């Protein structure tokens, strides 16, 4: 058992927000597939249908998506969260979003009765006007929003960061100053694809966020930089699909990892990665993940 901000996890693989997280049943399934913890779809104050399709396309080195924060509102999501909490058997983290501190607080309070194990604040979705990265690129807003949630709850608050900023460390520090118990890095990297037959942008929203293989070096660098300057744990996410990728992210400074797009290849990705990590630790004579967290900082 490992401990991430007080959450007891059987392994360091966490289902990332926005993947298989719309229903309690889907979250429970991912927990049974081996995820050490699961993060819900980002939930807001009002029902949202999201952007028109195509909302996700596979590219050569990753996936491009613009879902548009579809969610049924915290009121309708509450029973799904309760169900996940009841049956998942692993920590369930509620991802929430809002346009300002008040809206974030309203959603958090609305979900509190289901007793999520932590909140993950989505201040990083790259393609939702007024939400996500509109908040998360401004350190003052990030601090205010984080403070607003950490003030009203005793459960851990994680803040998911966008890489679409000049300096992610400034934003990470703002989260830490606001009382965040951990930061999650990174959300998707802004991107776009155009259909050359017609000239139309492929995504219904025209542009979106890139995930998967292609962004892993960006995520590794962000995690490395955050580890250098922050005192709170970092959860690494971005392009992890094998245990080797996970080890690399941990060596950059991650205490745990999240897995998203890699579910495309198979839902067994969580168990494959956690078993691979264990084999690696044993083979190289380490006793636990903390032994290798951030060791790249000592090697140069």
């Amino acid at each position: 058992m490992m401990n991430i901000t007080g959450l007891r996890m059987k392994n360091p693989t966490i289902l990332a927000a926005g993947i298989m997280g719309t229903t309690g049943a889907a979250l429970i399934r991912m927990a049974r597939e081996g995820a050490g913890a699961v993060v819900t779809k980002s939930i807001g104050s009002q029902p949202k249908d999201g952007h028109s399709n195509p909302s996700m396309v596979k590219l050569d080195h990753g996936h491009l998506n613009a879902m548009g924060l579809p969610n049924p509102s915290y009121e309708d999501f509450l029973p799904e969260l309760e169900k996940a909490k009841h049956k998942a058997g692993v920590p369930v983290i509620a991802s929430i979003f809002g346009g300002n501190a008040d809206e974030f607080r309203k959603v958090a309070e609305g979900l509190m009765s289901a007793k999520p194990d932590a909140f993950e604040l989505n201040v990083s979705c790259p393609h939702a006007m007024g939400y996500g990265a509109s908040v998360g690129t401004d350190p003052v807003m990030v601090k205010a929003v984080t403070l607003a949630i950490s003030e009203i709850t005793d459960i851990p608050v994680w803040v998911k960061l966008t890489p679409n900023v000049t300096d992610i460390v400034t934003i990470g520090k703002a989260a830490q100053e606001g009382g965040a118990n951990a930061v999650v890095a990174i959300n998707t990297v802004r991107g776009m694809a155009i259909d050359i037959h017609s000239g139309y942008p492929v995504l219904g929203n025209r542009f979106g966020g890139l995930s998967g293989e292609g962004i892993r070096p960006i995520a590794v660098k962000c995690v490395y930089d955050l580890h250098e300057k922050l005192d709170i744990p970092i959860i690494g996410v971005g392009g992890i699909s094998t245990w080797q990728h996970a080890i690399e992210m941990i060596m950059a400074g991650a205490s745990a990892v999240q897995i998203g797009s890699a579910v495309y290849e198979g839902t067994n990705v969580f168990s494959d990665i956690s078993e691979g990590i264990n084999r690696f630790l044993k083979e190289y004579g380490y006793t636990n993940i903390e032994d290798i967290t951030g060791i790249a900082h000592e090697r140069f």
Partner: protein
Amino acid sequence: MLPLNANIVKIVDETPSTHTFFFDHLFEDAIIGQFVMVWIRGVDEIPMTLSYKNAITVQKVGDATSRLFDLKEGDSLGLRGPFGKGFTLPKEGENILLIAGGVGAAPLAPLAENVFPSCSEVTTILGARNVNELLFMDRFLQSGQVYITTDDGSAHRCGFVTDVLDEIDVSKYDRIYTCGPEMMMKRVFGILERESALERTEFSLHRYFKCGIGVCGACCMDDAGLRVCKDGPVFNGKELVGSEFGKYTRGPSGQKKLF
């Protein structure tokens, strides 16, 4: 995979509410029952089962399908796929039963044609609102016996496909396949459960899709969290026991909609 560019080479008015759009692209390796994501540029992208290796048959039901109906021969579409799990093909010499309702005939007609040479008997129960809406009747007739029902009695038997299913001996069929409105399939499910035939039956389902590739979770069904776009759209009857099937579905936001 980015959408491939497909030109519409022929449009057939099958019934007053359904058109078949033939492309200049053949999905050679597609398994019957799989779907493609059809991108009507500037509008939306919607899942459609293949009714031929190079065609989809569409019912006009909403904005996206209405815009699709505005397209003419020579216009183009974006296509991704084929995706999902298709039908399990029968073994040689088996007796099969197809139960099709409305536009649900779209994946079953190619199945009838495909299995006709190798199966000993292909029986179809084909239902529609009225005589004009009977879809692919000829394709089923060329493959075997067809029972026809119409809701208003304008052709053959007045009633539903389940009225016929209730009367025939389902024990003689090695495999049963069904596609149609969920309320119809729910009643089919009830009869086949009673007859202990669920295990030999495959249901082709419809849910709202976002990603279409098994990642986002928007089409997950309760209670097993099965993804209709990836684990389906074709499911064995046993997989649906105790599920949300026939009870509710979810809209784009994830909010439940009761049937």
